[in-house]
């Protein structure tokens, strides 16, 4: 059925890496810094987002240690405020938002749709440089005293009252926005115009659908935060009054514009992770995904409806009660497509042939944590309940379940899944499973107590707290130390495996996507000849090239979408 190009002698699986691939095509620092190969740019991003992840992680560690005691002896109030602000800025703008799209998306989208590269390779490289420039401004702010406004930059605190290095950080985040925009632009155009023959929209891997949805948010949301931060920055530098009530401006308008982007930005983080999970589950259950069109459609639905819910961050700002009712109702609507995804993933497991490989452990961990994160979103969308839990640790726990439990689990799981494709070598399976379980346990121990803290009324962003909250804070810090271990471990063995890991071959799992039809690591041009797609997505039965034992399997009607 499939038209796999004949395996070249250099690509024998199991023994040695192919003789030529994108990593050894050219050598030298210039060949990396001036590369337009999407795979190399993905690796540049991998290194830079990891750097920011560890910076953000270091801040998080200090926060958790500080909160061991109610009075907080480790750092002063001012320093503590800077720590959580810098943690948020580094993690959200420089790790979570670019992580899956710019690393895995960049690497995989052309491979998955059978293209030689993204539509605009130079713009792709430009976006990485813009990211670096933005990152440099933010690092400059961090190293000249840091900023203490919270990652939300609420005015007039950020634009008038704060005495910290706000301006360079705002400029950095503003610049970084264009990096996201260019990535999104590249993805949208590539997915529209660069698909291989036979790769119809409904044969696309769900990872690609998720990135298409994410790109919509990049394109239509990011410019709004860019202009908002520009105005807030001008207000700070020139003493203007856009958002400063003392000069006639309205601080609530800043929040409207900020959340117009920053709420959909949550979906920038979670949608690509959902895409990763939608790849891992069918692969390791060896069966087509349940309800393909519903999962694809729900990605688009989340991206679109996600733009209608932003003011649920503002129920208690004094916004109109009518607006609050509208936004609460719409917030409940956006929960439905997420629920649909979870149900479909679970159903995919039914009558599968499930292996317990590491990526699958991450996928299951993702479902569990995302379930908690998503369901607690229902508590916060509830107007009456939000009066009590708004701006407490309940919120902190909720969004960490989504962003760390969801997005980061998806990212790390995806890294493991495609590691053989990226490096040509397998990670050590035993260590990887230990790391996955450690992460899951550490994560829950860190963040679950924070739900209780929140309902008890502990406000967020407190450098000291009443003693009755200490027990749960100690539990949380204990969990964080396990979590830290869970992140260091993969870092170590993944680097180790780049040199010493078992050679993976083209398709170690095996999986059905086009990216597995080419060498590991792939050629610079991705494919010897442009592939032609004649099979549906996630079809294991009609794929003799995968070498699976399909004779014994009960076969249903030939793959034909879903119904």
């Amino acid at each position, binding site marked *: 059925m499939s038209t796999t190009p004949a395996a070249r002698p250099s690509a024998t699986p199991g023994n040695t890496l192919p003789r030529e691939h994108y990593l050894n095509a050219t050598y030298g620092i210039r060949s990396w810094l001036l590369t337009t190969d999407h795979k190399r740019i993905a690796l540049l991003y991998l290194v830079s987002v990891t750097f920011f992840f560890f910076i953000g992680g270091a801040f998080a560690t200090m926060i958790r240690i500080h909160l061991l005691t109610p009075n907080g002896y480790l750092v002063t109030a001012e320093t503590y405020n800077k720590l959580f602000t810098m943690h948020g800025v580094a993690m959200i703008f420089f790790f979570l938002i670019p992580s899956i799209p710019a690393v895995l998306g960049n690497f995989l989208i052309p491979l998955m749709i059978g293209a030689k590269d993204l539509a605009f390779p130079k713009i792709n490289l430009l976006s990485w440089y813009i990211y670096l420039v933005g990152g440099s401004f933010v690092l400059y702010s961090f190293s000249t005293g840091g900023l203490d406004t919270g990652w939300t930059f609420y005015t007039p605190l950020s634009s008038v*009252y704060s005495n910290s290095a706000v301006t360079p950080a705002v400029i950095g985040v503003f610049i970084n926005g264009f990096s996201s925009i260019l990535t999104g632009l590249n993805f949208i155009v590539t997915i529209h115009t660069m698909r291989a023959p036979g790769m119809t929209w409904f044969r696309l891997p769900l990872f690609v659908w998720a990135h298409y949805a994410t790109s919509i948010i990049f394109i239509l949301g990011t410019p709004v935060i860019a202009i908002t931060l520009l105005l807030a920055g001008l207000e700070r530098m020139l003493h203007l009054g856009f958002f400063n009530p003392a000069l006639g401006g309205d601080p609530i308008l800043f929040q409207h514009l900020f959340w117009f982007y920053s709420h959909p930005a949550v979906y920038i983080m979670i949608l690509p992770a959902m895409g990763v999970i939608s790849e891992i589950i069918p692969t390791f259950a060896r069966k087509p995904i*349940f309800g393909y069109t519903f999962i694809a459609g729900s990605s688009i639905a989340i991206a679109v409806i996600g733009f209608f819910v932003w003011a649920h961050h503002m129920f*208690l700002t004094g916004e109109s009660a009518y607006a609050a009712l509208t936004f609460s109702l719409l917030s409940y609507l956006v929960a439905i497509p997420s629920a649909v995804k979870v149900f479909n993933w*679970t159903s995919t*497991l039914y009558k*599968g042939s499930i292996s317990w490989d590491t990526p699958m452990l991450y996928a299951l961990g993702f479902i569990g944590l995302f379930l908690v994160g998503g369901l607690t979103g229902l508590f916060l969308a*509830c107007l009456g309940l939000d009066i009590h839990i708004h701006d407490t640790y309940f919120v902190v726990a909720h969004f960490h379940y989504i962003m760390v439990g969801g997005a980061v689990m998806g990212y790390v799981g995806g890294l493991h899944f495609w590691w053989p494709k990226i490096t040509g070598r397998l990670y050590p399976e035993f260590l990887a499973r230990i790391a996955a379980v450690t992460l899951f346990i550490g994560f829950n121990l860190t963040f679950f107590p924070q739900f209780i803290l929140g*309902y008890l009324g502990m406000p967020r962003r407190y450098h000291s707290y*009443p003693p009755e909250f200490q027990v749960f804070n100690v539990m949380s810090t204990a969990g964080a130390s396990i979590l830290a271990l869970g992140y260091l471990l993969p870092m170590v063995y993944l680097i180790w495996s780049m040199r010493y890991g078992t050679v993976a071959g083209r398709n170690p799992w095996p999986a059905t996507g086009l990216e597995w039809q080419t060498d590991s690591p792939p050629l610079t041009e991705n494919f010897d000849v442009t592939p032609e797609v004649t099979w549906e997505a996630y079809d*294991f039965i009609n794929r003799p090239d995968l070498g699976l034992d399909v004779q014994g399997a009960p076969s249903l009607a030939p793959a034909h979408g879903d119904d």
Partner: protein
Amino acid sequence: MQSQMPLYPEQASNFAPNVDALMVYITAICLFFAVAVTAAVIFFFFKYRRKTAGGVGVPIHGDMRLEVIWLVVPLLLALTMFAGGAVVYVDFRRPPMDTLDIYVVGKQWMWKAQQPTGLREINELHVPVGRNVKLILASEDVIHDFSVPDFRVKMDVVPGHYNTLWFRPTKPGKYHFYCSQYCGTNHALMGGWVTVLEPTDYEAWLSGSSSADANPLVAGEKLFADKACNTCHLSDGKGRAPSLNGVYEGKVLLADGSTVTADDGYIRESILVPAAKVVAGYQPVMPAFQGQLTEEQIIALTAYIKSLQSQPVPATGAGIAPAGKK
């Protein structure tokens, strides 16, 4: 506070039982789904574990009936959550008429409260049990948030306009209040205690700690003269501006034909940006005072205008709308 680990704070206001009921309801539904999905995942995980290296799953592509069920059922359940939350929220956003009004001003990093008698407190708030209490919240600088977990209430305190928050304390005692919106360096220290007293104790406390120095009425009357308000707002209605007698809480007819209630928010706006809502029959000649009065001065002026509520209203030249014309 109890010494054992509590899972929810004390229920000390009219809102607390309702909010807790919402919490229980949503938790129950979510727990059901979380347990069901997790159990299914774990069950499938073991039951369908791969038996042979080349094994494949059964190629099931989907089921329309199931998709419809899990679209519609969660949607309906979500709508009930929305409805429950909406009922509590609307109640919270609409203070009843008979409230005890207390002004609360937040500034970096302290809270000042002012009782109707003019008595002031710092980082303390005394209220009587069983009375509807309305806090009129203002900020001198950045956005703060007044939050009392034991009452299950909180509201942002936004510079530039008033927000209100109301509750009815149901249990005497001392309850922690916090600033819940990050406001700068000492955000975590910007809290205090709400003391809920029996009504008689509250009266005794009010009279016991009366201090004449800070009567807002006196300060307001003085400001009214200092800022030359009294040169136009003549009480007999013959000035260039309407008489303010009886205006407070009355209906005001505006130049564009609409009417508004002269509540604290309207009076505040009319002092700061008079041109926004001009009384019918008058020219927008009043200077805007935005940026020139502190929140406390505005409260003092409002207190003075409030004291004119019972003064005789002149036949012409009053700000309030003629009776019968709503």
